[in-house]
């Protein structure tokens, strides 16, 4: 499916089986997060998560 990039407005290819929380890097350079809810699938810029549990 194609979803509009919230930053550049161009279409982004999102796999039909994409899960909420998946991360997609768009050609415009924005890192996007898939959000799937009752209204469907949308994209939002991925916030920088500052805390982590690295390896």
């Amino acid at each position, binding site marked *: 499916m194609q979803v509009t990039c919230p930053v550049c407005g161009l279409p982004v290819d999102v796999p039909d089986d994409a*899960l*909420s*929380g*998946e*991360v997609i890097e768009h050609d415009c350079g924005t890192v996007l*997060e898939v*959000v*799937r*809810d009752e209204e469907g699938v949308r994209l939002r810029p*991925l916030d920088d*998560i*500052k*805390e*982590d*549990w*690295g*390896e």
Partner: protein
Amino acid sequence: MLRIGVAYDILRWEERAIADALRRNGAEPQLIHLRNTFIELGRGEWPELVLQRSISHSVASESASALESAGVTVVNGSLPILLSNDKLLTASILSRAGVPTPRTVAAFTPEDTLKAADTIGYPVVLKPVNGSWGRMVAKARDEEELRALLDHRLYVPGINSQVFLIQEYIEKPGRDIRVFVIGEDVPAAIYRVSDHWITNTARGGRAEAAEVDEELRELAIRVAEAMGADILGIDVFEDPRRGYVVNEVNAVPEFKNTVRATGHPIHERIAEYAVELARR
């Protein structure tokens, strides 16, 4: 069918692998995207058991606590996550449990931190009490360097500048160990090999399979018991004088490099353990 939750903020390889492994073990994974939901305390239709996989320390502990209010068993629970979020609390718990750790000092002013470093002896390692991937961890070879680091720390946003944690610098053999505990099992360990003293794989450390000997196994179990945790990644130094010394503890550990280096499917063990716990 048995439902087991997987709570996360970003869906990484680890969370997908755990979800697939849960299916192979006869459970239905319920993916809980914590950045796309809310939790009302004491209410809600949640699985009886949820595996906590949030990258964010605060989201991990707070969401675990919120789910626990609704009677959900969260693995790891909010308390061990809170403890492991804080390097000073972790060192305190381990010290009380008699687990060998680097000599550690807490000070609450830069002046006292300098005095503490004289007591420990240089070089020392200055750490923030929160954080991982080795960020903001710095080595001071002498008082001049420590003074500079302390000055810089006062102006770094997000760092708790009231609490100063310093540790003795341990001369590692170019590597440290990340060992995994899942329940009472210690399935795998890796060496994190690096020319730099910070060895995190996210910082360029190379993962190589490490043997889990009996001493390491017993130490890892003792750490998990002391922290009250089910699943841990434990960072261990090999001190030339004292042997194994526990440096830090991770309550939501990444493990893709461990799976790749050791061939040991950590995700399968986590799924098996979760299914076993849920069926108890």
